[in-house]
């Protein structure tokens, strides 16, 4: 997978014969387009790529990709993907899920796939609403969110996908936005290159049921002043004119103007390997902070299938490749 082969694949190779049926203006179109743009560049044979999804608007994704795929059941995509990875460790497996699918009904599976470090690329399309079931609040909806199922406002505290992923020891945690297509492509490439669980939160716009969720940060013109793009080993600078940064004030991050009291050397320098910094970054939410975009954490640890197949090899070296005759007789036997 690290070796890039020229396969002469193009975007067209990844477009299935199915008509894409999302609402006009849905953010999913942009993510699909970026995926179909990025995959041919990866040097991975198309037949080794599998998309697995659960239920929801985003989970229609596999139908539109001309790869292997399973559209499964609510919340369970990580379980199918884990079994697939264990059965067939050579595959390049993507899990496409939404905030309801992954964090509500599938919350348990999500954390366990990540803690096992199964070699999966999990894309969580977060629009903070239930779209397919027509507009109920989701586990990521802000407190007070008024929907059909919360007419007086949601009284539940939202989950933060990134801190959840960090708590579950995900070895790659990143964030991107549907409307920021170039950056989204970069994050998808980085996720694809990572060995182990890649978890990517993608801010996604549901134009029908939650159209203003990302207002303030999704507009291309004003975005640079409201989000921060992370780069490993680089200070946390943002703003159209690179005039703002984030420093640590005690344990709390603080947005500062550069040029006056603070300069670049006062700022946090991004370190992808730091679990501690990752938590700080993951907690920086709009509108109090510029939400970070890009790779928040990336560390290399043995993957689930590396460990599993390592045990298979070790057992075969120690005991020899399994022999049924020996197995049947590995007990007190007697002959009549």
């Amino acid at each position, binding site marked *: 997978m690290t070796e890039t082969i020229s396969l002469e694949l193009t975007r067209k190779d990844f477009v299935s014969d199915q008509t894409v049926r999302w609402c006009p203006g849905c953010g999913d179109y942009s993510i699909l387009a970026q995926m179909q743009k990025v995959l041919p560049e990866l040097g991975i044979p198309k*037949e080794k790529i599998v998309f697995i999804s659960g239920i929801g608007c985003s989970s229609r994704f596999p139908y539109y990709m001309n790869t292997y795929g399973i*559209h499964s059941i609510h919340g369970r995509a990580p379980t199918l993907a*884990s079994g697939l990875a264990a059965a067939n460790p050579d595959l390049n497996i993507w899990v496409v899920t939404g905030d309801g699918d992954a964090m509500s009904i599938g919350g348990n599976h999500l954390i366990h796939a990540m803690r096992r470090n199964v070699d999966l690329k999990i894309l969580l399309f977060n629009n903070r609403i239930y779209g397919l079931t027509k507009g109920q609040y989701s586990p990521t909806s802000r407190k007070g969110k008024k929907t059909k199922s919360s007419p007086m406002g949601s009284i539940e505290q939202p989950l933060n996908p990134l801190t959840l992923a960090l708590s579950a020891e995900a070895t790659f945690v990143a964030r991107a936005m549907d409307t920021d297509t170039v950056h989204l492509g970069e994050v998808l490439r980085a996720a694809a290159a990572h060995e182990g669980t890649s978890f990517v939160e993608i801010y996604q716009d549901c134009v029908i049921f939650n159209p203003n969720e990302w207002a303030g940060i999704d507009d291309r013109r004003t975005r640079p002043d409201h989000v921060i793009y992370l780069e490993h080993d680089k200070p946390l600078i943002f703003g159209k004119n690179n005039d703002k940064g984030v420093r640590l004030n005690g344990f709390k991050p603080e947005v500062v103007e550069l040029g006056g009291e603070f300069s670049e050397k006062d700022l946090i320098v991004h370190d992808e390997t730091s679990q501690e910094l990752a938590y700080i970054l993951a907690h920086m939410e709009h509108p109090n902070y510029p939400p970070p975009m890009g790779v928040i954490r990336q560390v290399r640890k043995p993957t689930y299938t590396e460990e599993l197949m390592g045990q298979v090899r070790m057992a075969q070296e120690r005991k020899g490749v399994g022999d049924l005759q020996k197995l049947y007789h590995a007990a007190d036997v007697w002959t009549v």
Partner: protein
Amino acid sequence: MSVPTDHFEELESVVIRFAGDSGDGMQLTGTQFTTASAVFGNDISTLPDYPAEIRAPAGTLAGVSGFQVNLSQHDILTPGDAPFMLVAMNPAALKVSLPDLEIGGIIIVNTDAFTPANLKKADYAANPLEDGSLKGYEVHEVPLTSLTREALKGLTTLTTKEKDRCQNFFALGLAFWIFDRRLETSESWIEHKFAQKPEIAQANKIALEMGFFFGETTEVFRRRFHIRPASLPSGTYRNVTGNEATALGLVTAAQKMGKPLFYGSYPITPASDILHALAPLRNFDVRTFQAEDEIAAMGSVIGAAFGGALAVTGTSGPGLALKSEAMNLAIMLELPMVIIDVQRGGPSTGMPTKTEQGDLLQVLYGRNGESPIPVLAPQGPADCFDIAYEACRLAVRAMTPVVILSEGYLANSSEPWHIPNPDDIAPIEVRHPEGRSDSNGDAPFFPYLRDEETLARPWAIPGTPGLEHRIGGLSKAPITGNVSQDPRHHEQMIHLRAEKVARLADAFPEQEVFGPAEGDLLVLTWGGTFGAVRTAVTRAQSKGYDVAHAHLRILNPFPRNLGSILRNYKRILVPELNSGQLAFVLRGTFGLDNIMPYPNLHARPFKIGEVYQKLQELFSGE
């Protein structure tokens, strides 16, 4: 000592129960006695019975752990109705087991444990050893604890507690003397088990020997018994529990398919031992996956099946309830996999350590929509091997999930297994469509194009060029598998899935009948009731009753000839460890009104005697 002398009474069969506190090591004692008897050549059948609690309060009735073994010079099919000898390590064990004991049977009690406190814990108002309540039994009072301590007094490095833990081996040695068993197998087991703790090994060996010598030197035991080796078919044997045999069958099937075995499971009694048996077999490319829950286990198995492995999960009833949504996904995806339900007492969490056959309707009908799934049921512990292999074969043949309905009784009980030569076991044919070079061309791959004979769809696995395809749980069009809400497509696919399951009857032997091919009464069974019913029917036949027995190993689809068999008898009796689930299905399937349910809701296996009595009643009522 193995040569029978005049001092031995010859027995054809004997049933022995070891019973004690759940900390007394009774399962181990029973297993050791079983192994020694099996190696000696007796036919054996065992029934472990232990509490659901890991350690119920010591000495109480709730904490009694028992292990029953039936050994015989004949072919036996059950662990026996009534123990001839009971080894009771404390008053609670005596109280729980006494009602089952054969009249005039032998009781060995550990008198050291018959203290006022223990008697009180067992709800005894008076000491049964003194109040005459054991009149009619041959009672031997042995101070097992103090004798064991005395035997081990030379081992100064051990604590009294450690010494007391050896008293089960003292009891075992005594049982070995009474029943003329050899000590060697248990001695080598002890050496192997406690290889890292030589002083513990030594203590247990001394206790075992001293128990044996105690029998020999004490005048108390006047009777010794001998059971000749059984005349089993020639070959090599070992003792297997149902769960062990299931694991062996799965590994065999995987090897015979040339596939890795993926076993995704979540621990649950009484299915966990399958996971325990498979986990050490990594050198067979067994990939066990301990999932976070039952749903994940089922999901992982679907993924593994899609990936081309032999995919299996095992659970028990409450776990199967959680799996049902994903089982339906597997049915829609049409992927081969095996789902094992080791049934236990229900509903809900019910009786985790007790047996039942209460999940038949659950596996046949417990899912949304039209959801036919093949169901196989083993008839004895060793048969779990064959059923596991068969289930894998059928799953691949029809590209469908297949359920094995095992039972707690079969899972934990053991019997001799005639070890097959693996080379004689047929390979399981697996076909994967080959890759295509025109992967970017115009000819799409059809994932739901069916084999004309079996109606199976192709098992195209990711990684194969040119066969890229998407499958899912939504209704789909035939052949292309594309999502379709067309009512005709929906109906057609339902028929196709049902028909391919029905056609599995072609790949399974026709139903056989034991006894007359037509007549008055047919007893029809499935699962672990086989042994008790077959033995009772045999006895009834020898008394001249017009009765036959048919035992089903495949419950969906039914064998092709089942309907015609059923119509050959005036009456059909269906004994089941449930309230009549198979009887209900048979009535509905074949429209018969002469089917008599014979339910047993005691969460324990049928006894031969009670089935025989039922048969007697049916014939005397004429």
